[in-house]
């Protein structure tokens, strides 16, 4: 009996090996495991066998039948999966992508970092009143910044804002203290255009007001912000600066990334690059925003997003940024 069964299996295997068409295999299937197949008749003869033989051959016959069915099904799947489609699978096309403006990318990166520190992103108007751009920011009437030659004054008595600091006052008025805001935005200065100068560029402003905010907090936020932006252990130093809207005021330098602080042409051999203007918010500015300087202190900072984008992406002509020239801009795929 065993021999017979083994013989059937071998016979089937051989036939299957020769078969190439689905129809042939289906014929083989009915021949070897169908109702009229030999194995079927052996199986049906089982009931006439002695109890001993039933025990002896029962499972063997059943298993053999299953194995034979499996062999057939395997062969069928094999045939099904045989790939008859032929095309050039080595073809490699370029993908076309859109682009975000480099300033948008950098602004998003920075606001993301500031959001992690609990800052809210706000925005302000580009056409601004003298009050918000100068007066409320403690810029006196006689200050050079208020001269015609630096500011675009408009024929309706307004001006194009020269800095994003106007957002300080708007934010204080809208949200009051305590406050953590940042405000990326476009600003305007009456400049002649060249590779390094634009009359239209982007800045970001940051401001924190709370009880007990100190110079040390300012230092912490700045250091970590720059570190996150450049993904490097950037050294930061504060040195005295002067801005009407902060007191004390600080210029924040960052260790030069080109030479690592050793001195090179980029940092004019000083090892440092001037990055951020900052300081503790001037009491007059807090008052202008309706906040009591005896109760609250705060710090503010601002820096050029355009400049940062140029540094980070090594753009050496600022005019590219407002040119709308797709040849340059298309490099900045979406991040």
């Amino acid at each position, binding site marked *: 009996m065993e021999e017979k069964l083994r013989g059937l299996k071998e016979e089937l295997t051989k036939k299957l090996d020769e078969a190439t068409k689905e129809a042939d295999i289906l014929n083989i299937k009915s021949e070897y495991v169908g109702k009229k197949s030999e194995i079927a008749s052996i199986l049906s003869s089982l009931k006439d066998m002695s109890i001993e033989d039933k025990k002896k051959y029962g499972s063997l016959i059943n298993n053999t039948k299953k194995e034979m069915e499996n062999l057939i099904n395997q062969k069928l799947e094999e045939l099904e999966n045989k790939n008859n489609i032929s095309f050039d699978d080595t073809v490699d096309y370029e993908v076309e992508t859109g*682009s975000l403006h480099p300033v948008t990318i950098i602004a998003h990166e920075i606001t993301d970092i500031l959001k992690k520190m609990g800052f*809210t*992103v706000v925005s302000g108007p*580009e056409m601004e009143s003298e009050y918000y751009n100068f007066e409320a920011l403690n810029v006196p009437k*006689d200050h050079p910044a208020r*001269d015609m030659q630096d500011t675009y004054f408009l024929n309706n008595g307004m001006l194009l804002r020269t800095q994003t600091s106007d957002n300080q006052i708007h934010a204080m008025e809208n949200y009051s203290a305590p406050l953590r805001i940042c405000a990326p935005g476009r600003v305007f200065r009456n400049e002649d255009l060249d590779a390094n100068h634009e009359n239209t560029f982007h800045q970001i402003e940051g401001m924190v007001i709370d009880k007990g905010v100190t110079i040390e907090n300012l230092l912490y936020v700045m250091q970590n912000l720059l570190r996150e932006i450049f993904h490097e252990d950037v050294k930061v130093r504060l*040195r*005295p600066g002067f801005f009407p809207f902060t007191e*004390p005021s600080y210029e924040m330098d960052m260790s030069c990334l080109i030479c690592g602080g050793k001195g090179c042409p980029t940092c004019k051999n000083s090892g440092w690059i001037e990055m951020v203007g900052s300081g503790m918010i001037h009491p007059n500015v807090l008052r202008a925003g309706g906040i009591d300087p005896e109760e609250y202190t705060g710090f503010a900072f601002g820096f050029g997003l355009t400049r940062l984008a140029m540094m980070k992406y090594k753009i050496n002509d600022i005019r590219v940024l407002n040119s709308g020239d797709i040849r340059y801009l298309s490099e900045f795929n979406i991040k």
Partner: protein
Amino acid sequence: MLISCNKLKSHIKNPEDIDWLNIWDTFTLRTAEVENVEVKGNKFDNVVVAEIIECEPHPDSDHMHVLKVDAGETEPIVVVCGAPNVRVGLKTAYVRVGGHIDGEEIKARPLRGILSNGMCCSGRELGISDSHDGIMELPDDWCVGKDIKEYLPIDDIIVEIDNKSLTNRPDLWGHYGIAREICAITNHELLPLDILEIASDLEDLDIVIKDNNLCYRYTGLKIENIKNNKTPLDMQIFLYYVGMRSISLLVDLTNYLMMELGQPMHAFDARVVKNIEVGLANEGDTYTTLDGETRKLTNEMLMIKNGDKYFGIAGVMGGLDSEILPDTTSIFLESACFNAGSIRRCAAKLGLRTEASARYEKSLDPNMTDLAIKRLAYLLKEQNPDMVIASNLTDVYPNVLKEEQIILDKKTLSNYMGKTLEDEMVKKILEKLGFKVQVENNFYDVTVPTFRATKDIKIKEDLIEEIARIYGLENFVPKPLKLDLTITEHETIYNQEYEVKHLLASKYDMHEVHSYIWYDTETLKELNIEKKNVSILGKEANNILRDDLSLSLMNIVKENFKNYGKFQIFEIGTIIENNKNKRVLSIILTDNEKNLESIYNEAKKIVKYIFKVLKNKEITFTSNINELDYYDKTLGKIINIENNKIGTLNVLNKSCTNKLSKKKAIVTIDIDFDKYVKLNKDTILSKEISKYPEVELDYTIILENKKYEDLEKVLKTFLNKLIKNYHLVEVYENKYLIRYTLGSDFKTLEQKDLQSFQEQFIKHIKDNGLNIVE
């Protein structure tokens, strides 16, 4: 500004304790940014005093001489020299053979056949003056053979400080103020200046100030019998090192004082001075300044007048007729203080920014004028022991600037610093900077010196800055802000702008551009479009602010057509409409003329997509009768949301498009982003899915002289409870393929249901006068 360390040393007690080369990094952190530190005098060596003992013309040259010089050695040395001022008995600077000038070794070499052993040199060759008229003329009493560095302050360190970082520090525009800072930084003592006290037993000069608000103080002094007008060599070197030209003792001394104290001064030839009046110029008058330029005056310019004639532009520049001449022996000294803003505006208007005006516009201390005169008189007397003071120190000073007190409470100081400083430290820091400090229990009573009071120090926070910087900003430890879990109000504008930008760039492969807030005048002219809107004062071109974002991008469109046949750009930017700021999203699609239909429909899809995905809202388009004639009259659409206009879709008209590029099509979308931001995103609710299968049926309807909107009306009026939805699949010529999705919530649809639907639908279409392909 250039600073000489030798000069600083002269104002400080025990200056040798200070590392003058390396102090400047600290100075940057404490006071102001140092841009450069240059060591002087290390480019030459072996230059000694030598006397010319013989001087013969060179036989083979028409200008050279053969000299024998005594350089302190046993034998005279033969030197060939081309300078015109050689003469027997002259003591000069001589470089020995083997010595160096400007880093180059001097060798014995023949000049026109005669061996020259070393050379005699000019001030310029030594890098200590720009004079190259001849070899140096040294004083007779100097010893031959001695290194000239022993006599002259040639070894020096010259430091360049960034002027911008001194904007707010009028007291630092002279060496004395810098020396004071160095003393505070290094805990040294500042020495007082030597001055000449002037008795008041003579007559006052005739000085009148017409406008007290523009001229705060005018101090004058007349000095006679000045015979020596030769500037000592060490002063010449100092002036040269800090960037000034040596002219004559009298002129040099006024410059020296400006470099020392920061006080600009002027010396007039006393022969021409009648009476001095400080007042405004007459509009339209002209005046010729020292540099020979004739300048037009306005009635806002402050002038020094002598008798009835202009004598100088106050605080900016003097005139030719009062210049110190070689035969001047008596002078009228001016030391004055003017209003900073007035000087700044005057200098800016004249385009004449001088060392004096740069200082005056920083708000100088008016209490410095008399000190400067007394100091100048002292220095002048050293060179002219016989000079005669010929007038009182005449001082017109109507409103004396007095010292002010500021109360600095200790709590505020600690609040800002994040730490509490010892009283001793606070007191020492402020006193070294020139403040007077009274320490009380809870506060410091601080008296501000007037040299810091004109601009810089007004409130207690200003004092905190002083303390913090000298304490050392690098000594602060960065500390995070304390945990605060208050929910803050959030503005979503920025995020929503980014969301849209990201969508357009990533899904539609568009490029984000940035442009200007004003129209490009050239482009408007080219397109023959006239725009009226808010404009920038004093700007000739590109001065009209934009009120149509898409139109303002047309110069960018034009430029890109030079490199691309088709492209898609967008910007979210500000326009000015009805005198107000407004944010707008502009999308521009371009292609060849024949693809207009395709980009037009694409534009519609993009708008629908933005609102559907980001706001979960449906928009509709309605026809727009365009008032803007640069857009196509018939193709303009208004974009509506819930029956309110939120934007427009336009096609730039043919003639404008042709001016940008031939045979192109330009479709523009402008969406009011202020409105967009305010739209709530509709909540997405879960939808029940019928457990019975749905069936799709397609119908092709033929439209003759009709549009899809006509068909849509007909479709809308066909009501049947089996309809789940329907939509337009495609349009081919005048054939519109509509796909209906049918289904029931109660049963699986049978053939007879579909049959009956079909019959009703075809009837409905035909009843409405349309043709359908059966």
